[in-house]
């Protein structure tokens, strides 16, 4: 018992690099990395796919893949956490590609509905505004969704997001600006669509502007 506790405690004090070296032969070391990052990866995936079941499946795949490839992981300026996010991002992209081949329910309806009903710790119903915002976020291109989630859920700095998305800090600031503009336009269009007969002209000009942008 004493030995096990000493080992467990020492894993907690180690940094990621030490754990990665050990994790190549030692599953307990990988377990510590799992403890550190599982919830972050789960949250990222949850908001990208919109329901707990798929988030669980994809989170499992991320960690199985990370464990299977940890021998090949070499820190070339990409922290372990960024490496996990990249695996997650690729798996989510594959997931959406597969879903689009057999999609039955429109994604926005699905996401809004699922977020309301599946989030384990969100007891209250999401408000109409939240649903509108989530639908608008899911209409953004994948890398912009990723940026928004890393900012607001993971509260990462621009430099950290840059490491994950393989861009400079300046490029992240610029992308973030464009993302917020696109989100604001999307919300404005949604607002016009709620009263289509009154706003038909404004709506078509806004959509044209969005297509050109």
């Amino acid at each position, binding site marked *: 018992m004493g030995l096990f506790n000493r080992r467990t405690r020492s894993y907690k004090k180690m940094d990621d690099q030490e754990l990665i070296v050990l994790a190549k032969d030692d*599953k*307990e070391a*990988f*377990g510590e990395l*799992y*403890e550190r990052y*599982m*919830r972050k990866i*789960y*949250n990222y995936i*949850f*908001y990208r796919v919109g329901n*707990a*079941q798929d*988030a*669980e*499946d994809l*989170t*499992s795949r991320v*960690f*199985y893949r990370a*464990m299977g490839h940890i021998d090949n992981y070499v820190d070339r300026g990409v922290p372990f956490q960024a490496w996990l996010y990249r695996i997650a991002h690729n798996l989510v992209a594959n997931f959406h590609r597969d879903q689009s081949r057999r999609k039955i329910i429109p994604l926005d309806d699905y996401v809004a509905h699922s977020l309301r009903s599946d*989030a*384990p*710790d*969100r007891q209250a119903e*999401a408000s109409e*505004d*939240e649903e509108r*915002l*989530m639908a608008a976020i899911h209409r953004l291109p994948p890398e912009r969704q990723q940026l*928004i*989630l890393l*900012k*607001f*859920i993971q*509260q990462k700095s*621009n430099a950290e997001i840059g490491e994950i998305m393989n861009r400079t800090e300046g490029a992240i*600031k*610029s992308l*973030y*600006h464009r993302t*917020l503009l696109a*989100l*604001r336009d999307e*919300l404005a269009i949604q607002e016009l669509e709620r009263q289509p007969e009154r706003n038909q002209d404004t709506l078509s000009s806004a959509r044209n502007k969005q297509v050109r942008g």
Partner: protein
Amino acid sequence: MSSDTQMQEFLSAATDAVLRGENNLERLAGRYDMPPEVADDWQSLLMELNSTLVVVQPSARFENQLKAELMGRQPVAVRWPLKRLPVRVQLAAVLTLVGGFLLLLRNRFVGGVGKVALAKKEEARVAR
């Protein structure tokens, strides 16, 4: 600083401020030479994003089960993902498995009978 760069810097700083729980961005806007209306304009969107995108907790069952599987403390649960599929898909999977098994049995049996029949024919031909 160009107005675009200025706006980018302001939005990054404003987001950090909202994430820290600040709810008045006017002073911050002043630091980036932005009129207060611009701060107001973005504040509501940033605050809405902050209140909508909240951290969710995975279920403890999932968290513990996945860790146990990764640590090799328990075999990967095939039944676990299967159980989450719709009933008709589960039924189809079971029927396919049973059907496949029966097909294998039939082939083996019919194959065996066929071989015996062939051997008998061969014996009869040799005897003649």
